């Protein structure tokens, strides 16, 4: 893989909380405009790694980090790289849908508004565009002023995707986005993700191996803070190089 197509890259990334290192020397390159899934048993460091890309770990008590995190070649932890700018380039959707207690439209326009966009027309266009990309527009176009809490769980999660898209990110981090959803809502969400991957780089943390197999172009397997294996999803699932990977994929542990 060449550096030119790499959207995200870590170099000897070591990170943790207090005295515990959660990630141990991770070297990983994530190509642009593809879906990369992080899999691994609970506590293996998938989420911590994911949250290093938009520095969401910084607020947690005792967090430390060594090594580099590069976003489109630029050091995410460089003090001259404003946090707000990083986060508008690297959007994130969380495990549980977390809409704000506001209207659907204002949820979507939150990021641009915080970045200083005041023009109502521009905001309205952003809202429509983002909702269309998140494949939610047709379901909510008649009730943009309704409270976001009135949406179903799956719709709320797609609203959160639209909200992240409104800031215009090139990278989207999804932290187990379907774990709180039923199978139908999950299928719809996966469809949305696949559609989005044509224009946006997506990193997906999941517990669900079938989900990784269904949507991810590439998969990275983490175990106890180490990157065990990374590669094309189909190849890895068919013939894993490492014994640990094979055991995990066949359900021997996890």
């Amino acid at each position, binding site marked *: 893989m060449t550096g030119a197509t790499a959207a995200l890259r870590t170099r000897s990334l070591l990170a943790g909380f207090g005295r515990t290192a959660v990630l141990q020397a991770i070297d990983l390159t994530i190509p642009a405009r593809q879906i990369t899934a992080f899999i691994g048993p609970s506590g293996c460091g998938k989420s911590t790694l994911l949250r290093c890309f938009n520095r*969401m770990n910084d607020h947690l008590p005792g967090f430390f980090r060594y090594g580099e995190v590069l976003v489109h070649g630029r050091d995410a932890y460089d003090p001259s790289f404003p946090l*707000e700018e990083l986060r508008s380039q690297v959007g994130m959707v*969380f495990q549980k849908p977390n*809409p704000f207690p506001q209207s659907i439209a*204002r949820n979507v326009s*939150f990021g641009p508004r*915080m970045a200083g966009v005041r023009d109502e027309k521009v905001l309205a266009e952003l809202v429509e565009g983002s909702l269309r990309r998140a494949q939610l527009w047709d379901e909510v176009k008649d009730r943009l002023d*309704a409270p976001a809490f009135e949406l179903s769980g799956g719709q709320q999660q797609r609203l959160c995707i639209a909200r*992240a898209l409104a800031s215009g990110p090139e990278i989207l981090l999804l932290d187990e986005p379907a774990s709180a959803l039923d199978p139908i809502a999950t299928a719809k969400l996966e469809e949305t993700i696949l559609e989005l991957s044509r224009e946006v780089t997506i990193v997906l943390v999941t517990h669900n191996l079938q989900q990784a197999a269904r949507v991810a172009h590439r998969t990275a397997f983490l175990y106890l803070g180490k990157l065990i294996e990374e590669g094309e999803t189909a190849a890895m699932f068919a013939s894993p190089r490492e014994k640990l990977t094979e055991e995990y994929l066949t359900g021997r542990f996890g």
Partner: protein
Amino acid sequence: MMHRSLFKEGIAARWLAAAALLLSLGMVLGLLTVVSAVAGRAFWPKPLVQLELASGEKVLGEVWTREPDPHNPGHERWRIKTGNRDVTGQDFVWVAKAAVVAREEPRGAWLFERSEYGNFYGFPGELRSPEGVIPAGDDRFPAALAAAVREGRQLMAEERALLDRLGALHAPVVKYGAKAEGARAEKRRQQAVAALERARRHEEELAPPLLARLAEVRRLVEDTTLTVRTVANQEITVAVAGVVRAVPVNTLTPAQRVGLYLSRWWEFLSAEPREANTEGGIFPAIFGTALMVFLMTFAVVPLGVVTAVYLNEYARGGVFTRAVRLALANLAGVPSIVFGAFGLAFFVYAVGGSIDRLFFADTLPTPTFGTGGILWASLTLALLTVPVVVVATEEGLQSVPDATRDGARALGATRWQTLRHVVLPYATPGILTGTILAVARAAGEVAPLMLTGVVKLAPALPLDGTPPYLHLERKFMHLGFHIYDVGFQSPNVEAAKPMVYATTLVLLALVVVLNLLAISLRARLRRRLSRSAV
């Protein structure tokens, strides 16, 4: 087996809890019942009873209380409100039930509620006015008397208005006079003297017609009189203008009784007090209480919310934060009179005294802000209720899910934007809960006010039509203090008893209304919060 189910399965605990709940409910209901029962009866017209005693003496009045006679065990004595304080020197007499020979409710007896000396009970003789003399037996008498009473009230109101206008004309003369005397710089003294001259000329120009009208009003007041015979056959002449209400109590129809009852309540709620607060209304106290609570709310909510936001969002959870929280919790337990003493020393003397020296030096040694006033009382109460608001706001802030904060941060919102656009709107119901608790606490608090600005009779409301409209330095009346004053400090405690209970009922109602106001506001905000733009 019996014991097993009783204790192991918590049946005993359940019964105990139910009993405790019942007891608490009973106490609250009992309080409300007693207060509303006594207050509800307070203004209901009582029949005028004429008693003939064995000694040949006659007594006319309202039967106030009946109780066992301490001097004569086994017998009952009655406390009769006989009024006519200006004639007999007392409002009440004791009558032994055994001494009563005859009892009747004479149809000719009238009750006169007066603006001075309290009630008068007697039999009207004739109404003398410039239009002629009408005897009580005449069919036109009731209507003529009612018209005369109405007219008299209008005259009294006009007299008050004239005095107010004259006072307003004279006020600048006093003000610039004091300034001219107190000014240290020659230039300022000259300015004050010139202003004093202008004010004098203005007064001399406008006052004479007012004074003439005042003299005429006073003459008119004396023109209309009523002769009344007391039960002891004494003939008294009463100025009709001093009569607030003339009622032939014993001949009233039920509808008239209800009308009288309502009109007395209306007077109680809307009028100024009379006769050392034992009669008339409590409007200045209602107004003072409500205004003080509003001022306090404006002070305490920003202070408490900012404090809570700092403690919860910015401060690191170290020893200092823990110490501040502990201090706040203890502040809530400090006796309120201590806050009063602090308010007196800090707000009144230190802050108010400094303001006087800086801005009102001309009128010293008469203090302007350097004495108790509604502003200092409100700020003292704000200090008293700050812990309540801080604790409730902190709970509101802690109830905001971390996922929601993370969501805002992940969208590139700064810490302040997250706080301003997501966390604070989310915490608003908690903030309002704190406000409700603070209002409830402040509306009923009396002790600190006694040191920082409450008075038994305020000459003017703290909010009126003269600039700057809101007079923060003025002393004010307060319902809680009014209860204490009328109930314990009044010269005529027995006569004022109904007023005490009625005032208590009004205070309870005011607290409930203020709470409902805040609760409905919170409900509306919650709805808005879950619906759309915050």
